């Protein structure tokens, strides 16, 4: 079923013996226009985030470049000293919102992806351990995951941040803590199914080492569901980080993510200065929706039950 066992022959060209799994995923992915739109949107967001220092009109963290005279200008207003236009307006410190959003996107994506990768690695290791060794290790790891998943992630993250305090490293610790259990569960259930299969038995019969069986045979076949969970979790992590930062518990004010920008504009919302909160919110929303659209389509493609 998985990557190794998939051997659908390509009918048209006899030269290509086996369709590569990546190509199959790609060809099925483009069938949904909505998913492609999501992927394009996500690609744009990633490029914007990576290129933020070169794209943004000003460095939003360099106080020398900020002009307090320009604070809280509406979108489209021009700067007092230069002829530059603030396309999305400015915040209370005279910071160009467009620049702030590009840098904020960079931080939000970095935190989301970093925490997901670390949580994936930890969850993978624990899930494989539980599935392969079973017994008390399995029981201990899975009970811990059960207990943790019975509490909402926001509550656990809040508890941790209340104890640890603010900072990029701390919020990553909190996000990893709330995420690892999802991966551990997913990889365990996938591995439990896979280890019953004949190729694992064959590998055992060949007297391959345990490490080799786990990492070269078991792991690649557990990847499809993990990829789906990881995609959903990146969106979840970004959303959670934004929420925590909005509540004032996530990132320090020196490195504003999108959530912190929204929080910063919140106090001016009631006086009608909507743009300080609204546009960072739109950027956050588009990023999350894009990731969810991609994840939805991946789930359909990689779900063996829906495969023809």
């Amino acid at each position, binding site marked *: 079923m998985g990557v190794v066992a998939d051997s659908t022959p390509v009918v048209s060209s006899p030269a290509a013996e086996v369709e590569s799994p990546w190509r199959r995923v790609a060809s099925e992915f483009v069938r949904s226009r909505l998913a492609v739109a999501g992927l394009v949107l996500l690609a744009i967001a990633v490029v914007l985030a990576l290129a933020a220092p070169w794209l943004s009109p000003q460095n939003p963290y360099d106080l020398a470049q900020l002009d307090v005279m320009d604070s809280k200008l509406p979108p489209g207003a021009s700067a007092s000293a230069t002829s530059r236009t603030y396309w999305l307006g400015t915040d209370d410190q005279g910071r160009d919102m467009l620049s702030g959003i590009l840098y904020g996107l960079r931080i939000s994506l970095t935190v989301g992806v970093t925490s997901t990768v670390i949580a994936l690695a930890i969850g993978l290791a624990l899930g494989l351990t539980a599935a392969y060794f079973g017994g008390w290790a399995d029981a201990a790891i899975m009970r811990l995951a059960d207990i943790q998943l019975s*509490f909402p992630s*926001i509550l656990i993250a809040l508890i941790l941040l209340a*104890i640890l305090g603010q900072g990029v490293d701390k919020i990553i610790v909190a996000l990893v803590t709330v995420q690892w259990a999802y991966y551990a569960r997913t990889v365990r259930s996938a591995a439990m199914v896979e280890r019953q299969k004949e190729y694992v038995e064959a590998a055992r019969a060949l007297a391959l080492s345990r490490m080799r069986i786990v990492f070269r045979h078991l792991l690649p076949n557990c990847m499809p569901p993990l990829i789906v969970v990881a995609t959903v979790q990146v969106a979840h992590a970004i*959303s959670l980080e*934004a929420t925590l930062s*909005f*509540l004032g518990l996530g990132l320090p004010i020196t490195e504003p993510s999108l959530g912190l920008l*929204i929080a910063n504009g919140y106090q001016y919302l*009631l006086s009608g200065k909507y743009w300080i909160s609204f546009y960072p919110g739109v950027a956050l929303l588009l990023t999350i929706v894009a990731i*969810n659209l991609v994840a939805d389509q991946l789930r359909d493609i990689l779900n063996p039950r829906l495969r023809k």
Partner: protein
Amino acid sequence: MLAYAIRRLGQSAFVLVVMSFLVFIGVFAIGNPVELLVNPQADQVERDRAAAALGLDQPLATQYGTFLKRAASGDLGRSFVYNVPAIRLILERLPATLELALAATFLAVLMGIPLGLYAGLKPDSPFARGIMAGSILGFSLPTFWVGLVLIMVFSVQLGWLPPNGRGETVEVLGVPVSFLTRDGLAHLVMPALNLALFKLSLLVRLTRAGTREAVLQDYVKFARAKGLPMRRVIGVHVLKNILVPIVTVIGLELGSVIAFAIVTESIFAWPGTGKLLIDSINQLDRPVIVAYLLVIVTIFIAINFLVDVVYSVLDPRVRPGTAAAH
């Protein structure tokens, strides 16, 4: 049945002990407990006295025992900011949070089940597609941003609804509630809707999936073949069968609604426990943080316990023996 409930109660007690231990470790053992528990403005003499009074020279196990004993008798320390017992602050704010959570759940059920039924009965109609697209959006939108947009539209632009506070309250059995006064209701609508949105999306999806499966079953075909009116088939045959999982989810999600109320309360300045928690974190009012965490964890464990027991009454398949497989 009773045996199952008792065993489940044992599990709950175990989780409660584990969580209290984690909160204890987090607040008392990581970092300097004196810093955490003594007013930041206190001088050195006062700190030393506090350290001795707190029993910090004792071994960790003894400290934990003392902490548990005090917590069990309701003594979770005094708030630095308000100078009243922390537990009393939490209990005073709890009705507001519960009212908000229940109102949100009520809204989610009131809208989610009919919309989900419609989407399940006519999955290809444009309206049903609209509902499903809306539910994806409901999952994707961060709660706090929806709250901001609601305030922006209904308070700032249209001026229809008040942006913050709880409004006028009346006492029912000694508990102040908002939903019985016109002013209170106007204050309640937006926060409740904001908090309901995520659960609404969840309920729409659940109801739709259940309905789509149910209408293909033989008993529904038979009921229709008997010539029963569609209203009765849906209202009695379909709804009754999809309700068990839905009721379970509503129960389980009540806890998460209370947790997410932290966000909604902060946005709408709703004077509940969630806002108290955020304020306390910002003001370093540690005893209140600890009290909140222990109360909320207890509520959670109680809800999970009740839902599991009720579920096993409704659905005999999950009773003893098979409980482990579940």
